[in-house]
């Protein structure tokens, strides 16, 4: 973000939030300013107590102590000043230390540093094959043209599935490769503490989201920040899954925060009569043959519900050696990371045509500005109505996630074996199955290959019907090749084998990982294909 824009954003966000605070205080039932300040103070104090390791804690303690002492006998003007200072503090913290220089650098730094970084991790490859071309490793497919067009015609919210902390790096590189300007995005504060990722976070244009901050005022600042930057034409990256999908399932319960910013920005643009008022939502999926943090994520998911950690700061992505191992594996295997761009949507979830105009389900053009008119026929925010719109665009994004899920060999093979084991032990609940791995006798390779083939055929049929996507290898459906490829991928990265092959039988290794890779294909009705008839099960 350029400096002049940065200043404009700060001013705009601050004035909007302050004005909203003052206006609501006038309403019957509104929060008086002293209560508002007190409430924010309470949330911050609690956070600082709960998180003794929080970065900048001493500074925060001093600030809030000062707020407390001033709050005691503050009159109207002083309250207003206090509020302004709090808002300013939140806004500046969200913006972080962006600078024009760093930002300009980022457009060129990333594409050059990423391959170098990868090379450093794989000296043998560098010697034998020279500089790697990332396009061998990261495959971008789908409606690339649509994304480019939307970025030209309006502002884009790119909404990817969230699998790994590497997602933002992969997408950052992909945006460059597609010739697009960098997108800004909100990244958890913990990522700025990650030795590898912090470098990219700073250079990709990330702003800071502190998920430990629970004060409603802070959340308002975040949302308004996103809204204002969208209005100023800055495209954004937003992971609607919230955090990385712990289970490996395709995310279906989405957090809608920034999607609501999309609608609000669009309405504000209409109200202000901006030339390019449109905001587009472009879902995309990232698919990895092996996932860097797979082991930690699934382990966290399987802990009793409610005990899982929202923020993980010690997973594989925080261990440089592990990251190195991952990249080595990915590069050595001509590994596949697939980024698939779905068809663009408007902020209401309608599809858009080749000219960026919204169309209904029957392909007729829609004047979407009419969706946001109030009773007087003028564009306006109507909170209840807009919440329904946000829910609807969220549902459209979730649908796109399912349809643009790319089936890789590692998912397909894990899915087949897991479903096979599950069917063979109908009385075992999930946890028992995961703990024991079934009776441990494995599956005869011929039988297994037949099931893999059947699932591949079924997946391909779904792909033909537009319900998901498959790689060429899966479409080809050669079971020996698929099993071989999956085993090689697992083995090149995971220390514990996911699946092992001994003699003419295959055995489940790490059941948690098997389950994790399996989950990506759950819910498509492929289970029947994975389960053989009773003769084969025995």
């Amino acid at each position, binding site marked *: 973000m350029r400096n002049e824009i940065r200043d404009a954003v700060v001013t705009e966000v601050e004035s909007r939030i302050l004005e909203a605070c003052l206006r609501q205080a006038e309403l019957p039932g509104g929060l008086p300013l002293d209560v508002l300040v007190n409430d924010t103070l309470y949330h911050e104090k609690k956070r600082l107590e709960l998180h003794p390791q929080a970065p900048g804690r001493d500074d925060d303690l001093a600030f809030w102590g000062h707020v407390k002492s001033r709050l005691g006998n503050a009159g109207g003007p002083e309250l207003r000043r206090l509020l302004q200072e709090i808002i300013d503090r939140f806004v500046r913290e969200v913006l972080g230390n962006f600078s024009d220089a760093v930002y300009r650098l980022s457009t060129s730094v990333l594409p050059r540093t990423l391959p170098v970084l990868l090379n450093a991790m794989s000296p043998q490859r560098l010697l034998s094959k020279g500089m790697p071309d990332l396009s061998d490793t990261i495959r971008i497919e789908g409606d690339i043209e649509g994304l480019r067009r939307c970025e030209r015609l309006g502002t884009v919210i790119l909404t990817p599935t969230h699998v790994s902390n590497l997602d933002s790096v992969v997408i950052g590189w992909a945006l460059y490769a597609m010739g697009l300007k960098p997108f800004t995005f909100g990244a958890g504060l913990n990522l700025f503490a990650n030795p590898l990722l912090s470098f990219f976070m700073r250079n990709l244009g990330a702003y800071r989201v502190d998920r430990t901050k629970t004060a409603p005022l802070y959340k308002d600042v975040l949302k308004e920040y996103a809204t204002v930057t969208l209005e100023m034409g800055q495209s954004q990256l937003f992971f609607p899954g919230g955090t990385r999908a712990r289970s490996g399932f395709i995310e279906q319960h989405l957090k809608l925060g920034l999607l609501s910013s999309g609608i609000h920005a669009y309405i504000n643009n209409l109200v202000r009569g901006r030339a390019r008022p449109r905001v587009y939502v472009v879902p995309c999926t990232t698919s990895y043959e092996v996932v860097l943090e797979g082991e930690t994520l699934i382990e966290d998911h399987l802990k009793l519900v409610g005990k899982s950690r929202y923020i993980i700061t010690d997973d594989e992505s925080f261990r440089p050696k592990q990251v190195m191992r991952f990249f080595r594996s990915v590069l050595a295997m001509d590994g596949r990371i697939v980024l698939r761009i779905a068809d663009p949507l408007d902020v*209401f979830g*309608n599809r858009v045509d080749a000219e960026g105009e919204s169309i*209904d*389900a*029957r392909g*007729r053009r*829609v*004047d*979407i*500005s*009419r*969706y946001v*008119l109030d*009773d*007087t*026929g003028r564009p306006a925010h*109507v909170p*209840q*109505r807009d919440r*329904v*719109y946000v*829910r*609807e665009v969220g549902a459209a994004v979730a649908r796109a996630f399912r349809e643009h899920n790319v089936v890789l060999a590692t998912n397909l093979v894990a899915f087949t074996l897991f479903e096979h084991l599950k069917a063979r032990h109908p*009385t075992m609940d999930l946890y*028992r199955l995961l703990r024991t791995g079934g009776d441990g006798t494995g599956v005869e390779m011929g039988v297994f290959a037949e099931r893999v083939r059947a699932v591949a055929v079924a997946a391909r049929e779904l792909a033909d019907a537009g319900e998901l996507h498959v790689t060429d290898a899966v479409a080809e459906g050669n079971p020996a090749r698929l099993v071989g490829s999956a085993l090689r991928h697992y083995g090149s990265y995971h220390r514990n084998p996911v699946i092992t092959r001994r003699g003419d039988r295959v055995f489940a290794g790490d059941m948690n990982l098997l389950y994790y890779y399996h989950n990506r294909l759950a819910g498509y009705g492929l289970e029947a294909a994975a389960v053989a008839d009773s003769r084969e099960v025995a």
Partner: protein
Amino acid sequence: MSESAPRTASVIGGGSWGTALAHILGTHGYETLLWMRDEDTVREVNEERTNRRYLGDAPIDPHVEATSDLARSATHAELILVVVPSKAFRQVANALGDHVVGDQILVSATKGLQEDGMKRMSQILREETCCRKVGALSGPNLAKEVLDGHPTSTVVASPFEEVIEKAERMLSGPRFRLYGNFDIVGVELAGALKNIYAIAGGVAAGLGFAANTQSALITRGLAEMCRFGKRFGADPATFQGLAGVGDMIATCTSTLSRNHTVGRLLAGGGKLEDIVESLGMVAEGVETTRVVHHYARRERIYMPIAEAVHRMLFEGATPESALTTLMERASRYEDLDSLIHTGPVAGDSVVESARLAALNRRLE
């Protein structure tokens, strides 16, 4: 829509309920266009102020103008009620889609489900038009009684508060009270499913059974509806409201209901084709039974009454045999969800399993 908020409304579909709704809007002072295909009926409504085929001699309010011009009806008003039979619904909705714009409100008052994909009517409105603000109207509303001015209530459901408010403002009157509900899935499913039990109620009446039987049918029918609705995303509480049990009582006990009539004639030994033919209007319950039966099977939802109605309608079962099967079923519990375990629980307690085995040995 605009600052002056014109007092206009449109109703698509000139059957009994569509005409009755147009009449209500007319009596509230709204210039209402009532769209229908049949030119003769258009003339009849406009010149004689009646729609005899559906509503006898009941007079229609002078603010209602019948028309066969769909484009005009679609652009005439902000609020459009769509009341065409479920079989024709998609086609009419698609035609509407050529004319409507995004700030218009479409409310379905059709109680049925589309066979293909079990789509609800409001879903079809969403799919065939650009309109987002859609809703559904459902409740104990026998058109003839409403037209005769009997007091009643109904539910308008939509995720949009604005739809509920506008429909409420326009349709509510001294004899017609509207309640809002955000659970549009539940309201639409309730409206469609109760027709199955209305047929069952008709059969029971035709066989000469009275209050006990009707009450059992309504109560157990409601349990089936709840199970089915829950599986497809409805809030079970909705079925306890006007659109659920309210509508059930009306249609299961009134001879005015077409679905009830189908059941009664069936009990008298009539053939389905002849009955439908003789009715001269659509009994939605027949199609709904087919659709619901299919999905209940597929999703393994326990619906013995719906199953029995399906057997009578489509599998040649006599009412007596369907009744016998219903009464002799194995299941003995009212609420299947809150059973206290009666059998051994696999892997739970070896001691319990051993106790059960010992008991079974003794009983043998």
